[in-house]
């Protein structure tokens, strides 16, 4: 079987509207998490820090040339990153409409970013019904499919915070099983009253910028954004820039609790182990781990223990949530782009806001931007419902 390679990447997040802008912020250690961005209506906007894309929804529509009704902010963010990825991979219109081109996207908010509008519609407002056809998760990818006339396999996944890692895994499997020759995979989520209040009610939102793996971490910051990657068979990618190889993936369930990880971290451990097995790599081969590292009490401790359990000598690791916030269904795809950049640029980016290692664990993440020899990067994502997925990207 041909290796599956990354030939295009696109990202929009709180630290930039393009791969180049995101990269510049990563190198500088410049966070996108701020208070008072003001692009989504919520009493917590301005009170709590968020990783906002500082462009209004109307402005995004204009920039993307979206004039049809019913297109949500989630879809706009997805389209923005999708456009960059397909241009980067130089996919032609004919390739996009070919039956062997698949689209696999993930989202956890989808059209439910329109909390107020949905409430109005379900309580008798029958005049403003622009969005009633786009309340679900599939609406995001159906919009992209319609816009580009995609005729191959199109799918939408939602496994909470690991959604887009599963989209990347699923895209690779479509190629390996002969159901597609090229796939565009990723995820998108926009900030919404819905998720902000959900995570706030769970009391895991920090009122400061998140501090992954720090003893005094206070929780996560929500963010928004999108990222897509174009994956092709190596033989089909002749003459193209090859950013990295997708060399492994592992999916496991923690089977412990609806919204927190088991103390033993069985799900995270198994996802990482299955990814290594799938890539035929030993733990010692991994040079860097882009950790899930949300900054919550539960995740960072469990993830640390699971990593220590699997790796005799823990490689360098860091979480990029301090830059972007936790972008939920987009997180794994955004971090996949960052992992690809680790390989392509042969450098590591810092874990922001870290001061004191977690007591009893004592791990210190990467704290400064620096050059490094990177062959294999593991990227972790763990979600509600115990849905855990790890990916491995390798130097081509």
């Amino acid at each position, binding site marked *: 079987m041909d290796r599956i390679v990354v030939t295009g990447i696109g990202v929009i997040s709180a630290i930039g509207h393009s791969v180049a802008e995101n990269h510049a912020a990563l190198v500088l250690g410049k966070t996108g998490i701020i208070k008072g961005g003001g692009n989504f209506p919520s009493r917590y906007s301005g009170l709590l820090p968020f990783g906002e894309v500082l462009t209004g929804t109307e402005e995004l529509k204009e920039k993307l040339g979206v004039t049809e009704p019913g297109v949500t902010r989630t879809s706009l963010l997805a389209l923005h990153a999708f456009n960059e990825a397909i241009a980067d991979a130089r996919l032609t219109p004919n390739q996009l409409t070919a039956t062997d081109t698949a689209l696999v996207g993930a989202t956890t908010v989808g059209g439910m970013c329109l909390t107020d509008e949905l409430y109005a*519609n379900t309580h008798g407002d029958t005049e403003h019904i622009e969005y009633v056809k786009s309340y679900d998760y599939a609406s995001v990818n159906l919009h992209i499919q319609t816009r580009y006339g995609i005729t191959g396999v199109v799918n939408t996944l939602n496994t909470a915070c690991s959604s887009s890692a599963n989209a990347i895994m699923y895209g690779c499997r479509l190629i390996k099983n002969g159901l597609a020759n090229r796939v565009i995979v990723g995820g998108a989520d926009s900030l919404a009253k819905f998720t902000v209040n959900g995570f706030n009610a*769970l009391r895991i939102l920090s009122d400061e910028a998140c501090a992954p793996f720090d003893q005094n971490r206070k929780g996560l910051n929500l963010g928004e954004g999108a990222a897509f990657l174009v994956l092709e068979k190596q033989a089909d990618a002749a003459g193209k820039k090859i950013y990295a190889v997708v060399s492994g993936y592992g999916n496991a369930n923690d089977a412990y609790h609806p919204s927190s990880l088991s103390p033993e971290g069985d799900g995270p451990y198994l996802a990482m182990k299955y990814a290594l097995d799938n890539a035929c790599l030993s733990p010692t081969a991994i040079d860097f781990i882009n950790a899930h590292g949300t900054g919550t009490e539960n995740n960072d401790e469990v993830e640390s223990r699971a990593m220590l359990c699997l790796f005799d000598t823990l490689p360098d690791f860091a979480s990029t949530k301090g830059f972007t916030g936790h972008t939920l269904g987009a997180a794994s795809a955004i971090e996949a782009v960052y992992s690809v950049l680790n390989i392509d640029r042969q450098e590591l980016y810092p874990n922001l806001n870290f001061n004191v290692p977690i007591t009893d664990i004592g791990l210190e993440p990467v704290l400064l931007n620096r050059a490094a020899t990177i062959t294999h990067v593991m990227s972790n994502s763990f979600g509600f419902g115990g849905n855990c997925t790890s990916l491995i990207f390798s130097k081509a």
Partner: protein
Amino acid sequence: MMKLYIYKTTCISPQQTFGENIDIETLRPSVDNKLYAIEPAYPQFKGNALRRMSKSTRIGSGAALPLLADAVQPNGIIIGTQVSGMEENGKFLNQIIEYNEDMLTPGSFVQGTPNTISSQIALISNNKNYNLTHVHRGLAFENAVIDAAMLLNENPDSRYLLGGVDEISFNNYTLDTLAGWFKKEDCLNSDMYRSTTDGSLSGEAAAMFMVGNDKQNAIAQLKAITTIHSADVDVIKARIKRFIEENLAEGEQPDLLLTGENGDKRSLPFYTSCDSLFDKHTTIARFKHMCGEYPTASSFALWLACNFVSGVLTMPQHMIKRKGEASSFKNILIYNTHKVGQHSCMLVRLPK
């Protein structure tokens, strides 16, 4: 050829499809244009846990439990659903607005994410294997089927739990009605195919399948599946024709065509053009008067097809649109479309 065999299947639906006394002969009526699932008592779930579960989680894990009774754990759990948990999301949405984003409880938020069904099944059966939830609207179940078929290709000798689940919630019923997908005038399920207006009746169900690639002990084989995205009747007709040509012997016709005809005048042309592909050999039957319209209704059709092909159930008269000459159903074609744009074909046959 896909090596996807089905060993056991269960279904909690608006009809008497679950437990010991399955009876699809008697058609249970719709209420207020809705077909609600008949829920069993769920003796396995304890009080608090049961109270916290959304309806889709109850019917999904309730239908899955009998399939998990065997000692061998499935190597993965794969669920297709459009927006399971929407009722819980609706509750949370209302809290946000009505309490002005203050003093909220997270229960509904956590239960409202659609991967709750697959994770709840993993939790109650302590299954730490592969776990994935497909939410691609009217093709959510079909994508779950494709996932299972790929897994069986990648991991021969494995078993997977595959399911399709959706629920009627106040929110999705209201939104889909506003969008014109459910009938505005009163209509009974027994009359729905005579209706000449837009929209269908709303439904819900959970259908679960234990699948593998070994034909021993199988009740049915899912021989092929295809998904199509188009609003053009001619494109769809040509694709269904090609699907049959690719998957049946030359000149062979399905013994039974099971369609998702739903009483919506906008989708009728797709179903009648599909009907017209087959001659008097083929019996044509419909199922949505039993389960209602919902995004993963093709999983209910697959449950029926498994039971017809294996001879466990006989075709009730109320399903038949046109009686054909075939004396038994060895090959069954399921054709379904959801909201006109998304279509699928599945070919089910007796394992041989």
